[in-house]
């Protein structure tokens, strides 16, 4: 096994590059300052409340984990289902996964009231809690991703000095199928459990349904690979070097389009059963409150359905569009935005509807309200800065696209 290191490259200082790093620096600075204030003053500086205790940050967690789902989907395709021609994209998918999961963990640490106790789920187990299971799966899966990514790291010139370490790193190839199986299992578990986090809460009628975990996992499987595909195209545009065969990216787009159609199908029946036919007093009241106090319907039909489903399905599946890389990136962006809007809608809408437990008929709790505070947006911008920074460095220093045999 001989790995040929790519020649050392240097950043040519250009105005564009300075501006780019300026932007990243600014985002990171905003994020750090916001994080400092959150840690110093506590979550009181967020706009979260006892009636809406989860908000923008949870949306970021859920979205970035869904967008990182390309890693397990493509690994499974290549190493379990033997679709070897997807192999050139696996490294990038794993990298996108690493970024997605680390972003989620970063945001999660900001979101919990006691960041100093972040390790408690590993020591104090509650096997009945989906959130416990999610914490375990996410950390396990991040470990799997990092192991899967080791061969890429050891190819960097840094390891020219330690050929033995490099060989050790490359030996991971031999266990790649095992890692893919483990990754698939763990991912299937937590991607759906994230939906179950809402789906098992019986007190909230618009959450409590078995379709919740299914919709979460299928949307993640649909959007994750599309996100990876879009990243590949964007890297190609930025660096001007061909990354992956375009016909491969087109196949990914078709796959995502079909998965989105399956997602639409389940979403349709979910809508029919829960919102249209059920007429259960709880759900009916909840939708009434939502349409009265929030732009829920607009967010659902325009954000989730039109932007998140119709646009990407058309761009991914109609041959006239999916031959055009620009349309593929546009479709992936629309689908990703749709996922973010969906995760926001699920989280915030379910919480805005007040609980109804009063024995009488006169009193009802007021609907909750929530718009993220400056500090919350600040942390969100910081996470975006981190994502951009990581990608910039990776594109420059890491062999994300294997040449020849991997």
């Amino acid at each position, binding site marked *: 096994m001989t790995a040929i290191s790519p020649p050392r490259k240097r950043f040519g200082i250009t105005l564009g590059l300075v501006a780019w790093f300026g932007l990243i620096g600014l985002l990171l600075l905003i994020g750090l300052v916001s994080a400092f204030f959150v840690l110093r*003053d*506590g*979550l*009181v500086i967020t706009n*979260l409340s*006892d*009636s809406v*205790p*989860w908000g923008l940050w949870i949306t970021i967690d859920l979205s970035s984990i869904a967008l990182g789902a390309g890693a397990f989907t493509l690994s499974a395709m290549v190493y379990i289902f033997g679709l070897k021609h997807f192999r050139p994209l696996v490294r990038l998918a794993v990298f996108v996964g690493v970024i997605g999961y680390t972003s989620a963990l970063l945001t999660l640490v900001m*979101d*919990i*009231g*006691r960041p100093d*106790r*972040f390790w*408690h*789920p590993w020591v*104090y*187990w*509650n*096997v*009945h*809690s*989906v*959130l*416990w299971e*999610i*914490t375990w799966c996410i950390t396990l899966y991040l470990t799997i991703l990092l192991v899967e990514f080791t061969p890429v790291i050891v190819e960097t010139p840094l390891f020219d000095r330690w050929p033995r370490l490099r060989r050790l790193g490359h030996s991971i190839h031999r266990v790649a199928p095992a890692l893919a199986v483990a990754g698939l299992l763990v991912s299937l578990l937590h991607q759906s459990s994230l939906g179950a*986090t809402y789906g*098992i*809460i*019986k*007190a909230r009628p618009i959450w409590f349904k078995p379709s919740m975990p299914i919709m979460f996992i299928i949307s993640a499987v649909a959007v994750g690979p599309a996100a990876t595909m879009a990243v590949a195209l964007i890297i190609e545009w930025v660096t001007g070097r061909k990354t992956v065969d375009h016909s491969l990216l087109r196949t990914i787009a078709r796959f995502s389009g079909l998965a989105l159609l399956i997602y639409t199908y389940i979403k349709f029946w979910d809508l029919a059963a829960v919102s249209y036919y059920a007429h259960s007093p709880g759900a009916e009241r909840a939708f009434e409150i939502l349409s009265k106090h929030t732009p829920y319907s607009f967010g659902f039909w325009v954000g989730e359905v039109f932007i998140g489903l119709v646009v990407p399905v058309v761009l991914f599946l109609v041959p006239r569009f999916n031959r055009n890389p620009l349309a593929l990136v546009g479709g992936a962006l629309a689908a990703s935005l749709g996922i973010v809007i969906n995760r926001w809608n699920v989280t915030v809408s379910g*919480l805005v509807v007040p*609980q109804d*437990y*009063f*024995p*009488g*008929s*006169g*009193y009802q*709790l007021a609907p909750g309200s929530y718009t993220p505070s400056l500090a919350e947006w600040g942390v969100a911008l910081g996470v975006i800065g981190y994502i951009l920074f990581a990608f910039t460095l990776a594109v420059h220093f890491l062999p994300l696209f294997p040449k020849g045999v991997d």
Partner: protein
Amino acid sequence: MSRKRKRVQVRLNRRDFAKIAGTAAGSAVAAYLVTTGPFSPFGSLKRKQISPEEQETIARGELRWGMVINLDKCIGCEYCLRACSAVNDVAPDKPWNIVMEDRTRTGRRYFFSRPCLHCQHAPCVDVCPVQATYVREDGIVIMDYERCIGCRYCEVACPYDARKFNWEARKDENPYVPTWGTPEVERRPRGVVEKCTFCAHRIDKGLEKGLVPGRDWEATPACVNICPVDARVFGNLNDPNSQVSRLIASNSTVRLREDLGTEPSVYYIMPREQELSS
């Protein structure tokens, strides 16, 4: 796999221990002298002896604490809220006990109040990723403030809105102290969720002293003690002779959102409906 843990962990250093032990010993002596001792002016308030059966029940661990709230009696004075907030040092804007004006289906005005319902199938307990909240063997749903990571999933899962998060380190002065009582437990730190404990600290200490919670005021939740119209009654649901069991047997009672299967330990006697006469 035991989901129910009996012990509540409290960390003390030697000085705190000495202080608390001293105070406790002092108060015990004082309480003894004042209530049952030779100088007691309250002859009639003398605590009753525990019957042999009761002693056996307690020894066997057949305890399940519960409460009956008679909404027909409640006058909406909010004394329960105030005494609770003083004794448990609760933030004034996030009371553990709430009192609301409500109406029956026929429009009769009444007052609804709610502590934590101490569900036996508590949704908050199921969802906690670190078992920081659990159902004790005696049925009380309690928090381990040393373990909570502040994810707030329990708050999201509780159907009754009975949990509150400490969004900031509290520096407020408790407006209910000392008029309505003095704090008997520590303030909760920033970043953890807190909730009503049925005044578990009183129950635990009381049982050690051989008192009967629900009957002896020292061992009874503050909200029950202070109620001026006896709308709240506390006791052992597993003991058929306790006042709560007898009230439940002789009245029609409801529990909140019984359709959810949470098995709350708080029973409500509903207010009478309006007379339909002219």
